[in-house]
């Protein structure tokens, strides 16, 4: 089918031209040093809130967009964290929300006036948020090890179900331990993190409404996390994880301390998840148990797997597709954009199908998961090394 399409008289020249252009651009891109490339990308992304529309005037991406980008960014962070556990070490963790929640509550318990845990005025500690970021990493890692120990002997599906259980237990704990966590009401009124006096910054604190600043903060955070994650992947530990992922018994026979490295994977993943939680609580201004339900874990796992396990760009693409697009569908622009396809949809004049799509986005989400898995079981952008492995496995089979 595909071959026939490729040899088609109309398609062929276009495809050839595209292939040439792609090769050229790849060559040009490849000649740029890696660090410069990342720097350019960062600059491009940080500039997003300031892009101006040359025709209509004003910024292209207004507040609504930035709110979506911020959420997508947060999920990219979570995805990068879970990618360490699922993608690198091959441990399927369906309870990732536990670490996300622990980070969020760690900060909320200290920074919310509603918190039952403290009775000192939090205004005394203005730098609390910045101090909590490393603390969240540390506490998250601790939680990761604590929850990792009981599941050490488990593999595959069992690990998935048990970690899922942990995630649910944490949520039930948050709801039921009213005297400690504020119950289902949650903790609210979290103070906005203060900002130091930077030249060019005209705000003094990161309020939830300071979307531009939060967006930039999260972009920077993603770059740092992604850098750390890829360095971990290429380290001795990363190679140990890979060995464990491929075959735990063989890895152990090769002298790899599987217990240590599995716990390290849980700890690293959990630390990043917890960091994400603290950031989430700060920009949300509150922490309520409902934000920490199973769907978060499923979203994160799905975006890692759909993007391609072990692949950093896969996580980014997965987050954009699974978190960004459903949110985008709520926008007016989405209806306008989808309206362009009206001529292709037979029932367009009787049906507001863009609206239907928006309202049924979770149904679409489920179907999308199945479709991606069936069509590309190794994800949309498989990590380079895994791609080779899959190809080899397919030849064997």
């Amino acid at each position, binding site marked *: 089918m595909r071959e026939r399409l490729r040899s088609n008289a109309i398609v062929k020249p276009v495809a050839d031209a595209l292939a040439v252009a792609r090769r050229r651009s790849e060559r040009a891109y490849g000649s740029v040093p890696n660090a410069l490339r990342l720097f350019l990308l960062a600059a491009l992304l940080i500039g997003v809130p300031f892009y101006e529309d040359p025709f209509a005037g004003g910024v292209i991406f207004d507040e609504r967009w930035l709110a979506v980008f911020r959420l997508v960014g947060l999920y990219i962070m979570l995805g990068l964290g879970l990618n360490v556990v*699922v993608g690198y070490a091959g441990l*399927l963790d369906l309870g990732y929300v536990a670490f996300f929640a622990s980070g969020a509550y760690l900060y909320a318990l200290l920074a919310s006036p509603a918190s039952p845990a403290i009775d000192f005025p939090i205004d005394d500690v203005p730098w609390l948020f910045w101090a909590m970021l490393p603390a969240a990493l540390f506490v998250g890692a601790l939680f990761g090890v604590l929850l990792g120990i*009981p*599941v050490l*002997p*488990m*593999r*595959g*599906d*069992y690990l*998935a*179900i*048990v970690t*899922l*259980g*942990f995630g*649910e*237990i944490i949520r*039930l704990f948050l*709801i*039921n*331990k009213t*005297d400690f966590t504020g119950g289902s009401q949650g903790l609210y009124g979290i103070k906005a993190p203060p900002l130091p006096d930077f030249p060019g910054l005209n705000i003094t604190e990161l309020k939830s409404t300071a979307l531009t600043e939060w967006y930039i903060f999260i972009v920077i955070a993603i770059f740092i996390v992604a850098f750390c994650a890829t360095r971990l992947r290429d380290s001795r530990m990363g190679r140990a994880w890979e060995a464990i992922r491929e075959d735990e018994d063989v890895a152990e026979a090769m002298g790899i301390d599987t217990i240590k490295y599995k716990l390290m994977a849980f700890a690293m993943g959990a630390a990043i998840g917890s960091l994400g939680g603290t950031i989430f609580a700060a920009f949300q201004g509150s922490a309520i148990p409902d934000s920490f339900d*199973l769907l978060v874990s*499923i979203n994160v*796992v*799905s975006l890692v*797997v*759909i993007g391609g*396990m072990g692949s950093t760009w896969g996580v980014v693409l997965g987050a954009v597709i699974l978190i960004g697009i459903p949110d985008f569908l709520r926008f007016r622009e989405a209806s306008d954009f989808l309206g362009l396809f009206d001529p292709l949809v037979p029932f367009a004049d009787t049906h507001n199908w863009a609206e239907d799509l928006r*309202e*049924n986005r*979770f*149904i679409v*989400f*489920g*179907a*999308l*998961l*199945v479709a991606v*898995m*069936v069509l590309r*079981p*190794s994800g949309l952008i498989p990590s380079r090394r895994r791609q080779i492995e*899959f190809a080899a*496995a397919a030849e064997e*089979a």
Partner: protein
Amino acid sequence: MSSPPRRTGKVPTGWLLAIAVVVIYVGVVLIDDDKGWSFWLDQTRNGLTTGSLYALIALGYTMVYGVLRMINFAHGEVFMIGSFTGWVVLTKVFGGNDMSDAVIAPAILVAMLAAAVVTAGSVIVIERIAYRPLRHAPRLAPLISAIGVSIFLQNLFLRLTEGRFRQYPRIFPQGPGESVDLGFTSIDYIEIFLIGSSILMMLALYLFVQRTKMGVSIRAVAEDQEVSALMGVNVNRVIALTFVIGAALAGVAGVMYGLWLLNIKGTMGFLPGIKAFTAAVLGGIGNIPGAMAGGFLIGLAESVGREQLNSVFNPVLHWIGAGGLGLGNEWKDVVAFVVLVGVLLLRPTGIFGEVVGKRA
């Protein structure tokens, strides 16, 4: 795929363990007397009723796992589909609460049959679309695909029902004075119906798997797919068959759930699904009688275990100054997870054996 080592011997450890659990249970109930007999009998009755539902759902997990080594994450949603099918039959076809007494028995029968047929049909479609293409894919792929099916079905039904509950007609009288008096305790008609019919179905399944040719082929595929294919078993057909049987049982369980608890919703499948899975693991996944026993045990653990844990742990917790940490009613759902973790850690083979957990 190598077959797991079989345990041989006259008295299997599994039965000893099961008996031990029952003895401990009775013992603990006997020791604690400040709540009185009737309280514990109520809890037991309740536990057995829920347990029979868990057992029916657990059979689907266990059978599919037995042949495919795969956890069908969407099984809870199949249960939900069955429940909604029954609701449609009972309210739209037989007139719901206005049903005349004469048609009650056929109505329930038709509802159950319809639920079984619809769930079987939908699971055939699900297997064909979402699972079969992934049989040789990397191991996380079928799991994610199953999660996708689960999200899809859950939200589809939430959407069809506008996120609201649907009510089953109140066919069985429930409430004070509407139950069978056994002298020492009383039991609702619906509970007799639930426990009785689920035991009947399980017996039928057991005989089917043990005595019929199809049953033999199911067991053969569970043992070794490739060899049974060489022996002339149509593996695809057998796999589809196990899905269908599991789904039909879950569908009937869905109708019974509706008849018993009346309110059904698109998200209703999740928790029973997880608990039934726990039951399957507890009984030794892949083991059919194990799943039945596991279901009843989880049901009991949930209703009795929580009370019992409280009466054992509360004094200790008070003593160490953490009195508030006792388990409230909301913690009921945690029991299953704790059991799951405990079983996987202490006896990954489940009480009736078959080595799992490390595999997969």
